[in-house]
């Protein structure tokens, strides 16, 4: 029997993986892949993600930015996973909270910022960047990601797909269909599920009766891994393993990263209506960035001076991107007719002409 048709064994779910503990020490017996230089790079990206979010929230409060869903608290998921894939050959299929993962994967920050500002032209994904657009329709990206991965295999390309979904998204029918088809086709794909405990105000407990999202992989005949999603070293490790598995023909994986949404769902949401302050405080004590800083400080690689310097540098980088996006020209009204089809049909041409003649809709 070929490996495609062989009935897959339902492998037991691995125990929750953990490398760097919340207090900044290495878990007993853990052997991390990330070396110090690389960890510093991860830290820099995580700080960039958080500083960008904080800046956007401040701008949104002044009416200068649209509705925004920050990744605060989830930076280890966002960066640890992105660092495990190869931007040159692998594809990234995001939902919406992984903004900085897509930037790590090659999407310039000013491009995605322009998208949030509705600047059509400057928001175009540059040639060669293997990132699909931000997904708003929850879980709709999953079957597409599977199809992308399946196609890569059919075309014998040495690439894998990483796609993201939330605890909420795991309840959609598309989650089931996407994962099931991935199992059946043994597509080279990594499903990265960020369980940040909330889907807007809905608790993770409402989404599934299983105790662990990784368990769901068993039903699809592939590997499920649970990981401390606030531990960038562990996230990186398990994602690397899943990518290697996919690349070497071992099929899909589901990574369930346990994390916490340390801010609101988006800038219109007020979590105090439904969130227990205790849970939030507890999550804060497991901050994904602080633990890396503590660990590196213990190695003599981090101190207040370096933090201040990096913060300053990153703010400048972020602001440069924001400035580029802000100053980019606003689209012209008639550009709404661009890209409806490759070849505009008569009705689009006619409606566009009506506008140019000043008659409007």
């Amino acid at each position, binding site marked *: 029997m070929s490996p495609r048709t062989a009935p897959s064994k339902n492998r037991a779910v691995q125990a929750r993986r953990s490398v760097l503990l919340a207090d900044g020490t290495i878990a007993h017996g853990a052997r991390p892949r990330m070396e110090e230089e690389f960890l510093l790079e991860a830290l820099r990206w995580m700080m960039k993600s958080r500083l960008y979010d904080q800046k956007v929230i401040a701008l949104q409060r002044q009416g200068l930015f649209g509705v925004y869903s920050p990744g605060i608290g989830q930076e280890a998921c966002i960066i640890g996973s992105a660092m495990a894939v190869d931007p040159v050959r692998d594809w990234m299929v995001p939902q919406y909270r992984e903004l900085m993962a897509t930037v790590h994967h090659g999407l310039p920050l000013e491009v995605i910022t322009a998208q949030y500002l509705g600047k059509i032209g400057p928001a175009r994904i540059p040639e060669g960047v293997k990132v699909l657009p931000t997904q*708003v329709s*929850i879980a709709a990206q999953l079957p597409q990601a599977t199809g992308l991965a399946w196609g890569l295999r059919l075309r014998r390309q040495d690439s894998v797909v990483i796609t993201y979904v939330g605890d909420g998204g795991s309840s959609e029918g598309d989650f089931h269909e996407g994962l099931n088809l991935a199992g059946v086709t043994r597509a080279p794909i990594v499903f990265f599920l960020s369980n940040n405990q909330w889907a807007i*105000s*809905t608790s993770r407990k409402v*989404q599934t009766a299983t105790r662990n999202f990784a368990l769901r992989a068993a039903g699809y005949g592939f590997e499920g891994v649970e990981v401390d999603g606030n531990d960038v070293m562990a996230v990186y490790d398990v994602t690397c393993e899943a990518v290697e598995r996919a690349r070497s023909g071992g099929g899909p994986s589901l990574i369930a990263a346990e994390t916490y949404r340390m801010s609101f769902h988006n800038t219109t949401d007020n979590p105090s*209506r439904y969130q227990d302050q205790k849970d939030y405080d507890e999550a804060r004590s497991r901050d994904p960035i602080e633990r890396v800083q503590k660990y590196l400080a213990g190695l003599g690689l981090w101190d207040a001076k370096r933090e201040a310097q990096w913060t300053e540098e990153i703010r400048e980088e972020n602001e440069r991107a924001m400035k580029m996006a802000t100053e980019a020209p*606003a689209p012209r009204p008639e550009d709404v007719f661009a890209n409806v089809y490759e070849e505009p049909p008569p009705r689009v041409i006619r409606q566009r002409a009506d*506008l140019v003649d000043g008659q*409007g809709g």
Partner: protein
Amino acid sequence: MGEMRMIEAVRAAITEEMERDERVLVMGEDVGRKGGVFGATDGLYARFGESRVLDTPLAESGIVGIAIGAALNGLIPIAEIQFADFIHPAFDQIVSEAARTRYRTNGDYSVPIVIRAPFGGGVHGGLYHSQSIEAFYAHVPGLKVVVPSTPSDAHGLLKAAIRDPDPVLFLEHKKVYRLVTEEVPDGDHLLAIGPAAVRREGTKLSCFAWGLMTHYCLQAAQELESEGVSVEVVDLRTLAPLDRDTILESVRRTGKAMVVHEDNLTGGFGAEVAATIAHHAFDSLDGPVVRVAAPDVPGMPFNTPQEDFFMPSPDKIAEAMRQLAAY
């Protein structure tokens, strides 16, 4: 009951019906502790508890399917779809199941559910938080499609929808939620599903709309009045069933007809209204039946210049009225 905005009128209607009949329950994403993303179910969780106000998993097809199943054995679920843009995963359950169950079982079973969905644009929602979806569903026999444009109508029509023996899709325009305030009648205020409302009488042309566009048409009509053109504005309120008599009676008086909607032009519900007029009031027409609608592009753009271009506005409607009046 005092002055209310539409969002409060919706909440009042649900509350009253839940009090009146304990089979009525509310379900959907974030309808419980948060009270819905627009606050339509605010306070209901505290009042009626989690067995009657159910925060569901994030699964629209499941929400409607579960509502259907619960209804088949006598419950009366009000299912909320958080944004009309996200109703599409539930299309099969609504179109092939809820709408067809009575027919398919020769009347043995019926599905008396209400599906509420905030819809519409002009709120900087972009492609995924602005859609108008009424045309898909108004096409389907077995479903009723209601689109109130005022607080009082929302109240009376939603109560009627909850008591209706058939599935009702109840579309609430997001921009209308907090746009106007009006007195909502006390007592068992029920409005029949079906009849349109003449919002403003006029003699020169008839303008048909629903949801936010009713308000924009009224503004445009006001402007035309100052120019000496008398415009009648009819709020259809219900697209299925459609109040053909009121439409035709109005056009027979004015001789000119215009339909305004925010959905794309082609295949929008305006086409049905226009065809009805063209067929049944042909002899009364003194001009073409005009549609003012969004252009045929896939979505409401997020940025202001393009969103403004996409949306019909009071100015654009007024201009179309002028041209039609002068025809």
